[in-house]
């Protein structure tokens, strides 16, 4: 959606201020649509079949106006369904990026069953905790290496037995794709790919099985656009574009420029006839090297390139922690909504089941810091209290330097949260190591009735600190 004025959406709403959506007025709801915090479906009267005569046309217009600049394609089915594309801006500060590009990790039909199952399980189970959430891998890409349709189908089946995650079926042979679709169509996989050679057969498959399809015309945007037009005319509109991912050399520069061109055409120029989501193939890094570290690093670098500039989905290979971890974080950082402050509500939180003997920690209400400390305590089974001091979402080190956290603010925060140290057996709390210099002043403020202990600088070292320092010596 390009629209930024609520007034221009208001005219498509019923304008009755009925309040069903929870807003007082239709104008407020329109503002919510602009902010992407509300969905049109939440205006029930607009969809009520009784009202279609009255509102039907408005609804259609509204749908057109609010549709995303990069088309949104659904891949997968049920609660594992993924949104691919749907972006509205070129740069994240202009609003936010909405749908992080799913990472599809590859398996092949040439793998023996044990290796295949092991890899699928690894993909399925991969997770890392970050800012209150678990980062996970979204998809599995099944590559046809043998070219044998039956082997491919068996492989797809085996994959599905071991994961619920949506699939990308990869082959240029329509017979192979068909065999894969026979066993997996109900899960709405993405098929890769229609090319200038096989497009008729692949179009038929996309139609018959009602699955989204990738169009692959590397390094030829005219040809890619022509194919997209042909598919759209056939009524096949759940399309993903593969403009080619060259892993090195001058072609790599061309690849990035093509991604930028496609994103700009869709988002900045509103080219509605060619605004489909785009797939990147960082896996191609492995065509340039056999060295496992070099391959993983270069793949990560390619993934970063296209996460930042214009990919909506990507196929990956390396599941090594030194590739998947940094890429997950990079994607998270780029796709974090810059409009929402990354803060938690200030106050006293319980971790596990704390008692009067449990330690009392404190940190700031910067979400990253808070959740990091909380997870370090929780995952190490340290029953405790954790105070989030209001620093306007600034981390410990910066807020100590900037004065957003001070000894008296800490004391006030404990008082406001109703913390009664008299009820603890140890009468103490633990300062972050970065705020060590506050300990003396805090002791004074509390008149030496409550002890301010100094914890480690990184909360990951709390377990070790506990072993040596807890409970505090009397």
């Amino acid at each position, binding site marked *: 959606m390009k629209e930024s004025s609520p007034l221009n959406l208001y005219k498509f709403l019923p304008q009755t201020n009925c309040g069903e959506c929870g807003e007082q007025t239709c104008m407020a709801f329109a503002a919510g649509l602009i902010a992407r915090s509300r969905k*049109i*479906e939440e205006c029930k009267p607009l969809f009520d*079949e*009784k009202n*279609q005569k009255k509102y039907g046309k408005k609804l259609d217009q509204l749908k057109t106006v609010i549709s995303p600049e990069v088309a949104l394609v*659904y891949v997968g089915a049920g609660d594992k*369904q993924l949104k691919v594309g749907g972006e509205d801006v070129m*740069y994240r*500060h202009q609003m936010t990026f909405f749908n992080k590009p799913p990472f599809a990790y590859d398996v092949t039909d040439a793998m023996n069953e044990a290796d295949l199952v092991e890899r699928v399980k690894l993909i399925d*189970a991969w*997770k890392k*905790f*970050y800012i209150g959430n678990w980062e996970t891998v979204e998809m599995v890409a099944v*590559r046809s290496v043998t070219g044998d349709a039956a082997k491919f189908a068996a492989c797809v089946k085996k994959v599905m037995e071991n994961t619920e995650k949506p699939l990308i079926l990869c082959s*240029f042979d329509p017979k192979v794709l068909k065999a894969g679709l026979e066993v997996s*169509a*109900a899960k709405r996989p993405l098929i890769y790919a229609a090319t200038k050679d096989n*497009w008729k057969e692949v179009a*038929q498959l996309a*139609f018959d*099985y*009602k699955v989204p399809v990738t169009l692959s015309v*590397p390094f030829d945007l005219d040809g890619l*656009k022509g*194919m*997209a037009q042909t598919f759209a005319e056939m*009524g096949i509109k759940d399309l993903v574009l593969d403009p080619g991912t*060259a*892993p*090195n*050399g*001058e072609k790599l520069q061309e690849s990035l*420029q093509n991604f*930028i*061109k496609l994103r*700009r055409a869709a988002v900045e120029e509103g080219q509605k006839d060619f605004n489909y989501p785009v797939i990147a*193939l960082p*896996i191609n890094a*492995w065509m*340039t090297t056999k060295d496992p570290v070099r391959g993983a*690093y270069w793949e*990560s*670098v390619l993934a*970063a*390139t296209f996460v930042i500039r214009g990919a909506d989905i990507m196929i990956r290979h390396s599941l*090594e*922690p030194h*590739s998947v971890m*940094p890429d997950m*974080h*990079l994607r998270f*950082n*780029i796709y*974090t909504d810059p409009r929402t402050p990354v803060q938690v509500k200030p106050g006293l939180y319980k971790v596990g089941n704390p008692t009067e003997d449990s330690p009392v920690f404190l940190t700031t209400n910067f979400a*990253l810091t808070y959740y990091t400390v909380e*997870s370090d305590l929780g*995952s190490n089974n340290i029953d405790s209290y954790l105070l989030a001091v209001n620093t306007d979402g600034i*981390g410990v080190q910066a807020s100590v330097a900037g004065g957003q956290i001070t000894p008296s603010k800490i004391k006030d925060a404990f008082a406001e949260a109703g913390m009664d140290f008299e009820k603890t057996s140890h009468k103490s709390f633990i300062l972050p190591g970065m705020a060590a210099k506050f300990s003396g002043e805090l002791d004074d403020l509390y008149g030496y009735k409550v002890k301010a202990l100094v914890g480690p600088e*990184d909360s*990951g070292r709390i377990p070790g600190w506990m072993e040596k320092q807890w409970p505090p010596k009397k």
Partner: protein
Amino acid sequence: MGEKLNISDLNKQLAEMDVKSLEGVTIEGDIELEIDAGAGGAGPLFAYYFGEEVAKVAVQLVNMAKAFGYPVESLLQPVAVAQAISPAPAELAAAAAIPAFKIPDTLASAKFSVGTDKTWKTQVQEVQLGATKAEGGSRGHVIKIGGEKAMPFFFDAVMPNRPVVTIDVFDMPIGMAKAVKMHYEDVMNDPADWAKKAVKEFKADLVTTHLISTDPLIKDTSAKEAVKVVEDVLQAVDVPICIGGSGNPEKDVEVLSKACEVAQGERALIASASLNLDWEAIGKACVATDNVCLAWTQLEINSQKELDRKLMKVAGVPRDSIVMDPTTAALAYGMDFAYTNMERIRLAGLKGDEELNFPMSSGTTNAWGVREAWMVNSPNKNDSPWGDRMLRGPIWEILTGFSLAMAGVDIFMMMNPIAVAYLQEITQSLMGLVKAQTPDTTNWISMEV
């Protein structure tokens, strides 16, 4: 299924058909549906199963269900539909009513074009680091940064200068992550050797001498004593240099002013002037000795404007002697803020903000402060294994720097030589400067890895 349906019977019919995909959509009372014959989307498959009239109604329902957020499309493929409706209908004739799916003989030919960004009217200031003998310095060559007319690696305009790397050298041994330390252990006691190794072995474009021993809380080395190290480094290497203080706001003014004197005429990058120290003194020292002033602010675009303005207007620093450091928050540790702050600064500069169109610097070494870069294992027991930290660290520094290169950074302060090499390779590749045989990617599906 062959009989005609009244729309008011639809609810009952649908219930009998047990159409799972529409579960949750309840239709009460008499309903009016406007049926538009062209309201396609479901296609002949649907007609096949439902008969023409019902198909039309169903199309409406599907649209409604879609609007309510039901993923109906996923259920409208053969297997699911066949399971949902049993037994299969006998009447097939109606299928003809929906426009048939037709594959054309040839692909449409099309022309794709996209314009450049017309709002980018102003060039980023080009800044020369280093000065040769003829220019009043002693460097073997000079380095130019900045000068962009477009966002990095965009096709709108050629990038005139490649991003460069300056490797950190400290005036005393410091604690560092194992994956960094292993490369410098042999030179840690001699900043001159350290600088030589950075340039010769690790291909640093520049070196940064950090005078951290001057910190009153560390060794409190006097400014006069400390800057001898700068002289040593200038002797040891002939690349352009940067000079950093200890970060102590009082002491740095004295130390950096003195450093400017010994680097007279060298166009060294002086790190740094900031709003919480005497920026005017540092700015003026740079002007008086022909050095370049690094303007450091903390993740705040308006402070950056303020500092740049003050350096120009009050301290009299010329435009060609300002580089900005808007602060590098590392990957997974606030990189989103740093990235967006820099991207906004660069876009504002290109659009004509003359207080922001300067080259940018990144303290990429900050990546090593992130636990994922150095910790042996995850403190969270439920995380998937973190693997070998010796491999995790360098990629953390690579991606921290590279992300910010995409946002507009021109000069990177780095430490790990592997990270330096990758950063140089990817940024130069994206500028088209790296010639390599690109493999035929069309057969990636069957590649062996």
